[in-house]
């Protein structure tokens, strides 16, 4: 069950219009790095220079056509708020997690600004593979 706080967070994310503009180039760097974004461990995508892409999750190709900024932001920020069974980490959520290592405690995986960068980049992925 979703906690009501997370439900409201998810709703608010979908509804809130005003966000600082993200930087697509920085977003691409976050998506392709395996230290920070970790995206390509699970997803594949149109990154010919990245040799080893995971297949746990759908390709990111076409993500910018399938979803708008608000939907991408919501999925990145709290994927598990939208679907509790998702294995995609909620990149913007730092509380409600269990046994987090001290170095990461109280911190989301990505900051709000980094999430905006990734959103800006994913919006550029309009072509299918």
């Amino acid at each position: 069950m979703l906690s009501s706080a997370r439900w409201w967070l998810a709703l608010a994310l979908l509804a809130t219009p005003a966000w600082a503009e993200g930087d697509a180039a920085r977003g691409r760097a976050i998506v392709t790095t395996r230290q920070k974004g970790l995206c390509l461990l699970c997803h594949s995508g149109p990154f010919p220079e990245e040799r080893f892409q995971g297949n746990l999750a759908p390709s990111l190709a076409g993500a910018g056509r399938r979803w708008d900024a608000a939907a991408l932001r919501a999925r990145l920020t709290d994927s598990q708020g939208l679907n509790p069974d998702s294995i995609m980490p909620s990149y913007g959520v730092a509380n409600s997690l269990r046994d987090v290592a001290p170095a990461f405690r109280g911190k989301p995986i990505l900051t709000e600004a980094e999430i905006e960068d990734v959103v800006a980049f994913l919006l550029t992925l309009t072509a299918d593979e």
Partner: protein
Amino acid sequence: MKWLLLLVSVAAAEPRSGALDMSRELQAMQADDSANPGMLWVQEGEALFHRAEGRAQKACADCHAGLAGVATRYPAWDEATAAPIDLAGRIQQCRAERQQAAPLARESEPLLALAAFVTRQSRGLPLAPPEDPRLAPALARGEALFRQRRGQLNLSCAQCHEERAGLRLGSALIPEGQANGYPQYRLEWQALGSLQRRLRNCMVGVRATAPAFGAAEYTEIELFLARRGAGLAVEAPAVRP
């Protein structure tokens, strides 16, 4: 969608050893005792096994002759502590009580070597965890821990090693996480290590706190993994990437 079909096709009925998903070359390295670096620990373990130790000046070999099959039956119920105990724990206990020798720490070289020597003698035999009802509560806790999401990445063992075994995390094929190869020579470690070390790896990987070696949580997960992998042939010392 392609990736959904993959998820369906990997649902496994029989436990599958991670060795089957390694390259031919690593399989050959594991199978060849003259090239498998884990055999260095087995040899050391054999020497330790026959060495008189402690105030009792007894060697393991003074009490234990054939150990074939013994490792397949761990973790087991320990009467003394009324708790499950794994093979390394049993060796530690034997050393303290029978040999009255200085304790060997978890993941210490001599303990790994002794565990490797003992487990090697069960190579090829199927994992046969005891059907002891007293283990049931710990087994259930172990399964719950296996299914518990944790850490900043909020992943459970089961989400990768059960639900997505056979898929690729980056380039790495996700194995079922079976327990039949430990202690094992992990190329990533460039050394022999225990199942507890491997469990700790995964916990640290999802950015979770990891209990200290020897903690009950590890034995509980080990118990669940032994049950889940029952029938798999022991491969220790296995070689894994």
